[in-house]
């Protein structure tokens, strides 16, 4: 059974049709990259999979780990093992990071019928992660993303991912706004999640991230459809030739 199976997915925002029949299958152990120019529907796809209000699915289905994803509430999707890494993580002043991490980890454990992790073990795990992301412990006591730089926000997303160990990570433009050092740290984090029992979908505009996280498959999204799929060489081709030529060739 595949981890994620998107069949003929159509979605609108208001009257505007954004997704026009997406088909995509992700199996455990695979890394997929979805690339496309601005306005191709990349972020919409992420938001629809994340369960955001304001999008209307008009056709198609999405199976996640054997469940009908589209019928699940956002928090249930998260607790079932889907993690959405945001392009623009929102700032939530006053709510400490440490508190968010604890709440979400315990929510997931509860969903799996496990008890709450004891504070000592939790803190140990979190501290190690903070260190591995080259962040300062003080970050844990700051408000969620409040006053963070773009790079700090993205590192925070990856840190949450590593703590929650999702079955499928769906990372929306995680590389945007990162300098080269931060990009390396983030990539290392993503590579650490890689494993035979997990899937990762990278949604990105550029090939840059893919030099550090090697994808098994690359898809090109254009006008709400995947118009071309291939292996990592497709990303390199894209980088060399630009979208225009490939779009021309595909149409």
């Amino acid at each position, binding site marked *: 059974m595949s981890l994620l199976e998107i069949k003929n997915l159509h979605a609108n925002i208001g009257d505007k049709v954004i997704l026009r029949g997406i088909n995509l299958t992700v199996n455990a152990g695979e890394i997929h990259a979805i690339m496309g120019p601005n306005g191709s529907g990349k972020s919409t796809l992420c938001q629809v999979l994340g369960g955001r209000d304001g999008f209307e699915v008009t056709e198609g289905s999405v199976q996640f780990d054997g469940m009908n994803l589209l019928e699940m509430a956002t928090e249930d999707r998260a607790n079932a093992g889907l993690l959405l890494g945001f392009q623009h993580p929102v700032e939530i002043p006053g709510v400490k990071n440490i508190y968010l991490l604890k709440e979400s980890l315990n929510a997931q454990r509860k969903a799996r019928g496990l008890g709450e992790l004891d504070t000592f073990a939790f803190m140990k795990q979190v501290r190690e992660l903070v260190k591995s992301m080259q962040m300062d412990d003080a970050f844990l006591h700051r408000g969620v993303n409040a006053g963070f730089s773009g790079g700090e926000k993205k590192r925070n997303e990856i840190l949450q991912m590593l703590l*929650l160990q999702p079955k499928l990570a769906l990372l929306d433009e995680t590389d945007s706004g990162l300098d080269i050092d931060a990009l390396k740290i983030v990539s290392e984090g993503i590579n650490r999640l890689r494993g035979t029992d997990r899937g990762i979908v990278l949604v990105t505009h550029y090939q840059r991230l893919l030099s550090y996280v090697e994808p098994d498959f690359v898809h090109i999204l254009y006008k709400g459809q995947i118009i071309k799929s291939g292996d990592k060489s497709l990303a390199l081709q894209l980088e060399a030739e630009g979208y225009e030529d490939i779009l021309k060739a595909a149409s």
Partner: protein
Amino acid sequence: MSEQHEIEALVSRDYQYGFVTDIEQEIIPPGLNEDVVRLISAKKNEPEFLLQWRLDAYRHWLTMTPPTWAHVHYPPIDYQALSYYAAPKSASEQAEIDANRPKSLDEVDPKLLEMYEKLGIPLHERAALAGVAVDAVFDSVSVTTTFREKLAEVGVIFCSFSEAVHSHPELIKQYLGSVVPPGDNYYAALNSAVFSDGSFVFIPKGVRCPMELSTYFRINALNTGQFERTLIVAEEGAHVSYLEGCTAPQRDENQLHAAVVELVALDDATIKYSTVQNWYPGDEFGKGGIYNFVTKRGDARGNRSKITWTQVEAGSAITWKYPSCILRGDDSVGEFYSVAVSNNYQQVDSGTKMIHLGKRTRSTIVSKSISAGRSQNAYRGLVHIAKGADDARNYTQCDALLIGDRNGAHTFPYIESKNSSAQIEHEATTTKVSDDQIFYLKSRGITEENATNMIVNGFCKEVFNELPMEFAVEAQALLAVSLEGSVG
């Protein structure tokens, strides 16, 4: 998904302190005139100076009119329909017989002890919260004060107001009305005429009060006004942290609570006054609830003195209160931290006044309001820098959070400066709980209800941080309960 619906469902939980204690009470007949004032004074066996003080206040009150500037609406109060004194019979008789004698716990009616247990305020010292001394005020009288011997060892006086009138008349004479004069405003004048009981705290020179002091106010009787009076004096270099809590039964009638709190801080003294106000707010249709018309003012009289007001206002049908600081001493500091949450038909008009008179005086105001249901929630504050307040500083932050689209959130700051070296900064925002924030937290597996609670708590964090530990926990729980049904 209907977030709105879930939010609304969350706000409507029942008031859990709404029970009535069935106890034999002595209540004087409704009505207000000079004889009633004399009767109250006589019941407390008061010295002549205090009776005269009350009568003067009463006569002044007759010439005044209720304030109309607040953003609240209620039918005129019939002051002749209220009773101005109610006391459990046992306590009342005792007070009459011997107001001078401190009450020991053995003499307290077991029914009262039971009630306070039920409210989570155990009065037996062995069961009491460690490190918190409690004065329990039931309707018009103080029932008991705990830990008094332990406090007396270091010279701290903590007793009911009536008792202090007898045991320390010179202190009462010196400080009563010195911060809030009897004619200060309509409700303060009324209180000065008919106040029944309250707490008195005196921290002598150089003493750091060894434990938190706390007064627990409980309204029980029907159609009775509660008019308590609290006076806290911290002498040179003294420190005290004082907590105040309040509840009332659930009744369809509105009840009036018009208290006065006066704080005096001499040189280098610090007073921290924290309130968790949870008077009965009325039902979901706006019926019943307490009218909470309170005058609280601190006089930072001494140089380098400091007064901090922290309040969590969750209850009452109408709240009208502006805990204030007169920063008279040079280098004195005033702080006001407030969370005011309103739901259903509650009306809040609350804030503070910072009057900078001394040089290098500093004040900080952090006000967080959360309005849900059909409530109206207004911040009203005054920052006044007098001519002589060289290098005074004020920083004010007022944030309002809206939950639902049938309520109001208002900000009315008055800022006045007469000194060119002063610096004043005021910021205010009004927003709703953002869908983006809720979605982010939900995408991390957190339910909408928890997500909203997290956001609201985060919103209030700066204020909760100022509360003593035990109160901070209580405040968070209270916030969740108050908003239940309004948040998803």
